[in-house]
């Protein structure tokens, strides 16, 4: 008897739980709001270094937009006056395509901002154009999105510059700092991002300084955590410099392990995403390590009222400085706000349709905490932006990590011009690049 009783209550509880799950989906959407789907990693290995900082920035900036508390030119409330209502979901949810469809068709969001993994972006991109819902990729790096997957975008935008820029600028900076460089090696994770980063860097080095020797290319598994063998191989090969696109825990583990083995004293290390760890590692990252931040984000950001506000508000709320994923999320939201405000003005103050917003965002130039952004490539759908590299320096006096010898590269210098594929552009010796 008792057994049957518990069984029944157990089932009852399960049924109640299911009903509770179904309830919020039925909530109605009030008028005068823009419902924004935000997709970022909330679980898994990329959540800590990328997903959560991006989510934090989304919450912070959306609250400020709704309260009208942003500095100029974003001091007007909302998106074209309408309140922004975010729906945040996890990118690590097993089926990004199905979840994107759910976001658009079930949650009925007005637009989606999201996606960190290039794999997610490649899978979602064709669905965006099929389902016809305004979607802004804020972080994923693969140049294939507009070069191969969706060549005639109408509803799809990317406000983050693509990954070619990171490798090209890294090669330029390295060669400027080390004029007598004779050889280089690489250590990158064996998956799409690591392979693409290394290929671009390798090609850029060959184009910039023909005759320079490529030594070993180490490709350990992502999230391996132990890099003893790879460090030995690098030490044995004795290159003048080593390139790495490691991120998150892998990068921190590599820095700590390589330092223990004296690698930093023997070769120049270039960390293309080093900015994300400069404050976390602080004195543990050797001075002089070349670091980048995938655009002028974080400590690379130019001084502006908007940036001062963003840094202070972020630090006050989360007790840590914003890194590039936070900046890229803020940038995407502000780009969309700029487009909404412009489209609303053109529509006489009415809430614009997504087609009007898309038309306004196309080719738009807007301000962000990381400086000016221009939707310049792929028919006005792909952003370009300046980027910068510098040397990591730990300032003992203030107990803060700072940047030394910062060099800013103009967007036109490190991004391919309209109409040419990134890989071809590097091979052509950067035809059309404007670097002064």
């Amino acid at each position, binding site marked *: 008897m008792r057994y049957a009783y518990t*069984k029944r209550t*157990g*089932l009852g*509880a*399960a049924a109640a739980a*299911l009903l509770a*799950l*179904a309830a*919020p*989906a039925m909530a109605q959407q009030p008028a005068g709001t823009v419902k924004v789907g935000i997709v970022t990693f*909330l*679980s898994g290995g990329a959540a800590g270094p990328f997903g959560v900082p991006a989510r934090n920035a989304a919450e912070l900036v959306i609250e400020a937009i709704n309260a009208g508390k942003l500095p100029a030119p974003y001091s007007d409330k909302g998106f074209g006056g309408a309140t922004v209502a975010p*729906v*945040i*979901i*996890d990118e690590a*949810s*097993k*089926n990004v*395509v*199905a*979840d994107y*469809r*759910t976001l*658009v*068709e*079930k*949650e009925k969001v007005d637009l989606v901002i999201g996606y960190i*993994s*290039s*794999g997610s972006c*490649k*899978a979602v*991109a*064709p*669905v965006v154009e*099929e389902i016809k819902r305004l979607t802004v990729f804020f972080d994923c790096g*693969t140049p294939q999105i507009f070069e191969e*997957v969706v060549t005639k975008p109408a509803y799809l935008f990317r406000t983050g510059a693509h990954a070619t820029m990171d490798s090209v600028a890294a090669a330029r900076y390295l060669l400027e700092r080390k004029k007598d460089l004779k050889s280089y090696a690489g250590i990158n994770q*064996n*998956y*799409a991002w690591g*392979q693409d980063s290394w*290929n671009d860097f390798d090609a850029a080095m060959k184009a910039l300084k023909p005759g320079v020797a490529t030594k070993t290319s180490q*490709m350990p598994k*992502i999230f391996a955590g132990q890099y003893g063998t790879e460090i030995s191989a690098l030490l044995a090969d004795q290159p003048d410099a080593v390139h790495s696109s490691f991120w998150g825990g892998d990068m921190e583990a590599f820095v700590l392990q390589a330092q223990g083995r004296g690698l930093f004293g023997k070769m120049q290390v270039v960390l293309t995403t080093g900015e994300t760890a400069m404050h976390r590692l602080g004195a543990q990252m050797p001075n002089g390590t070349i670091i980048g931040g995938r655009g002028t984000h974080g400590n690379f950001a130019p001084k502006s009222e908007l940036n001062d506000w963003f840094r202070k508000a972020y630090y006050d709320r989360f007790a840590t400085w914003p890194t590039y994923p936070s900046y890229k999320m803020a940038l995407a939201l502000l780009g969309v706000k700029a487009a909404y405000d412009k489209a609303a003005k053109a529509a006489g103050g009415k809430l614009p349709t997504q087609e009007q917003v898309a038309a306004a965002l196309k080719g738009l130039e807007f301000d962000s905490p990381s400086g000016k952004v221009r939707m310049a490539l792929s028919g006005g759908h792909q952003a370009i932006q300046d980027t910068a590299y510098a040397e990591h320096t730990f300032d003992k006096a203030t107990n803060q990590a700072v940047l030394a010898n910062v060099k800013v590269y103009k967007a036109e210098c490190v991004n391919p011009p309209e109409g040419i594929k990134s890989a071809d552009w590097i091979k052509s010796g950067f035809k059309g690049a404007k670097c002064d």
Partner: protein
Amino acid sequence: MSVLTDRNVLVLLAAIPLLIAAGPIMPDWVRFFLQVSLASGLAVLGVVVQMRAGLVSFGQGLYYCLGAYAAGMTGHFVGVTDVFALLGLGIVVAAGVAVVLGFLMSRYREIFFAMLSLALSMILYGLLVKAEVLGSTDGFNLPKATFLGLAPTEQALRFAVYALTCAVTLLAAIFLYRYLKSPMGRIGEAIAQNEIRVEYLGSSARTVVHITYVLAAALSGAGGALAALANGHVDPEMANWTTSGQFVFVALLSGTGNVAAPLIGNFLLEMIRVYAVAWSPYTWQLILGATMLLVILFLPGGLWSLVERRKAGG
């Protein structure tokens, strides 16, 4: 009992036009989830047919992924876009590889079979991650599909692929149901109980295990190809052990007693996931885990035991 008077067969057959007819009424996202869960349900059926013979495959993702990549690569690199050709290719490649690997696999049982199947799928995963031409972990996209030379509009195409998925999955379920009732299927169950007796009765356990293995691979290959057509994208995650583990999980949670159980269970669990992801973006895994625990605690025979209990009671 002839095929067409068997109640189970009739129910499954009737479900095909019903599901297709319900397609246009359902919201698009529900239909899409149904389509994806029917496709991956085929891989779960592959796990189930092996479980009935006492074999637990922790590497069914191998064939799921092979089917998907066979269809995807033919579409992406060769330019073949016909759904029937792609589906057929997925099945043939998966079954072909299984015929060869089956000579090895049919020698193992229990934990050794499970571990070896896991190892084989992880080899494929490792190879795909290293393959830069295939986009490594990012995978690649499939071109727009065509139907026997016709290139229907977006909306019509989506519906056509949905209808095809319903028909293929349910026909496969009917076939599997009949197979499990056939002498060959019965021997499979006998192997699970006592392999030595099967040998003494004059059947070759190895041959039957081999056939079961190939059958499971063909089902999973079809599932992979259909999933690739639905998503328009493939990546190596399909061969990762987490995918294979999920198939085993769904099989256990749904119950292996009936061929319809894994299909229904797969869809229900997928819907729970959808609501969990939306309702609780930070702890959705916890909700899924709790649901699985509840099922295991209160329905050790899987969700299907609810149906069976009702039958027994009424």
